[in-house]
């Protein structure tokens, strides 16, 4: 089982980002996805900065991938995506079909992130013909659904070279909008947002009027209110043929979560459950996403 650190979904200052990835370089992650995927206005780091980080991480033995934007709206979003796809150094993770199109037309292999909708092996087969090497399952699918996709892949004869990744830890991206909800909370216009999301590096909690946490506001993205925790499911994933677990960072807690899994992987046996704050795993068990199934 390999471990992937997904792209940073929040907006942090350049210094904080560099500091964070210093620690990533020292961590046990096998693979790191870099780049802005949430909002085209978030430009603390330019592509050159991301490439600098990418080289640094590669030099410390990490497998590095560049991730592209998810929701593209303006022409400049699209040009930026073309630039990332044309970087000529690193494998690219497509988070929109525009990137799939750009990469496949350049004859490049690619991987897909969780927002490229792949719900069956016929979609996988089509993308594999275009150069898909690894896919991240949509976060809302369950273990049973994944088994069905992988069985279908087997029957279509495409499972041999296919790698599957599962979003296993972190606050899940659930929705994308033209509207910036962080700006809305702060009574700002999106076009003059003052990059106010820098002030809430973990997003803004949204709760019901009864105080139950539901979602996390992260700019134009709405995330889960609870942290996905499938850390103790690695053995089941391994059985199913999943090749890597994805972690998503909201803070440096991600390193603690990683270390817990790595310790179990080392022993090669399932350990006890590893609670994290404010957790959920319902999707994986075919239930409402926000639920926490005790195993």
């Amino acid at each position: 089982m390999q471990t992937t650190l997904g792209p940073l979904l929040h907006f942090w200052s350049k210094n904080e980002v560099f500091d964070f990835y210093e620690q990533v370089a020292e961590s046990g992650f096998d693979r790191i996805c870099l780049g802005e995927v949430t909002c085209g206005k978030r430009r603390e780091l330019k592509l050159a900065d991301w490439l600098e980080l990418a080289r640094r991480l590669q030099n410390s033995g990490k497998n590095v991938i560049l991730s592209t934007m998810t929701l593209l709206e303006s022409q400049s979003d699209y040009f930026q995506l073309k630039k990332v796809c044309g970087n000529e150094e690193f494998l690219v993770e497509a988070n929109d079909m525009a990137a799939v199109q750009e990469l496949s037309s350049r004859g490049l292999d690619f991987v897909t992130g969780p927002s490229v909708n792949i719900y069956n092996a016929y979609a996988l087969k089509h993308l594999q013909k275009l150069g898909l090497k690894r896919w991240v399952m949509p976060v809302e699918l369950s273990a049973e659904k994944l088994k069905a996709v992988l069985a279908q892949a087997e029957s279509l004869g495409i499972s041999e070279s296919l790698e599957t990744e599962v979003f296993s830890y972190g606050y899940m991206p659930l929705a994308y909008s033209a509207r910036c909800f962080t700006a809305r909370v702060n009574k700002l216009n999106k076009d003059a947002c003052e990059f106010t999301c820098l002030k809430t590096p973990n997003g803004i909690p949204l709760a019901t009027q009864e105080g139950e946490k539901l979602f996390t506001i992260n700019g134009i993205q709405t995330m889960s209110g609870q942290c996905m925790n499938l850390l103790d499911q690695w053995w089941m994933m391994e059985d199913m043929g999943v090749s890597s677990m994805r972690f998503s960072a909201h803070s440096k807690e991600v390193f603690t979560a990683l270390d817990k899994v790595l310790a179990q992987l080392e022993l090669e046996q399932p350990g006890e459950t590893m609670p994290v704050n404010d957790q959920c795993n319902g999707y994986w068990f075919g239930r409402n996403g926000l639920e926490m199934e005790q195993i």
Partner: protein
Amino acid sequence: MELVCPAGNYPSLKSAVDNGADAVYIGFRDETNARHFAGLNFSDKRALKALEYARDRKVRIFVAVNTFAQADNWSKWERAVDTASDLGVDALIAADSGVLGYAAEKHPSLNLHLSVQGSATNQGSLEFYHQNFDIKRAVLPRVLSLKQVAALTEKSPVELEVFAFGSLCIMAEGRCLLSSYVTGESPNTAGACSPASAVRWQETAAGGMDTRLGGKLIDRFKAGEQAGYPTLCKGRFEVEGDINHALEEPTSLNTLDLIPELSVMGIGAVKIEGRQRSPAYVGEVTRVWREALDHYKQAPSSYRAKDQWMRALGKLSEGSQTTLGAYSRPWQ
């Protein structure tokens, strides 16, 4: 611009056709389409009847098979595509690359439209669907400003259809999992958003109404306040100590004012949302839009949305209010 209207059943279809729709879109009675509600949609037999009614009046019929096919139930989506093809519908509206690939390969003469659930918001994505599946039209997600739609119209390899009126999805379609997070069912997987089976209406001691989805409180209405359906993105929530519509208010999209711009930039079709609505609703919205489009066609330079049209549509809107949504930058 072609006027594309919704029909969740045969009476609505007649209503749309009789009031001036150029095309009507329908779905089959299962999770292969994004309005999979109890009692809604068409059996094969009903679909054939609908097709005949529309054909006789020179109205086109589109069939939406626009959810993402579940691997453990793949044959359902194959069957839906085959049925649409056998019926000889004017277009199949689909989103899933697996489904589109199947349709393109098995039924090469079937006219394919990319559903809004396909989330294509840019030139590259449109080129992907065009090159891979030879789609002839794409429905744009409700996330682009009017200026961005205009820019895309110039670059798009296919004709574009945009949403004109109806319930407003504020999240990029095909990329919203809020519903499954709270209820287990989403538009992508089950063809349902905030499904009725997960809704609970609870009268409060003070004579008001609590609306719940999957047990979670979505809104709390005072006595005398009109209680709305608990759609997740339109609830009142607590954020940083304030309780309000943190994501969006109950409101409907209405773009009657934009007809001239949309037409000039070359938009091929305008879509009315609402397969879950009544025949009366579909008929009235279709009638107003037909009149507006005809007015524009007769005298483009003097077109102005009439107050009576706006009032008629306002009455049919969520929370009795309308918005231009993402087409207008300040909304964003």
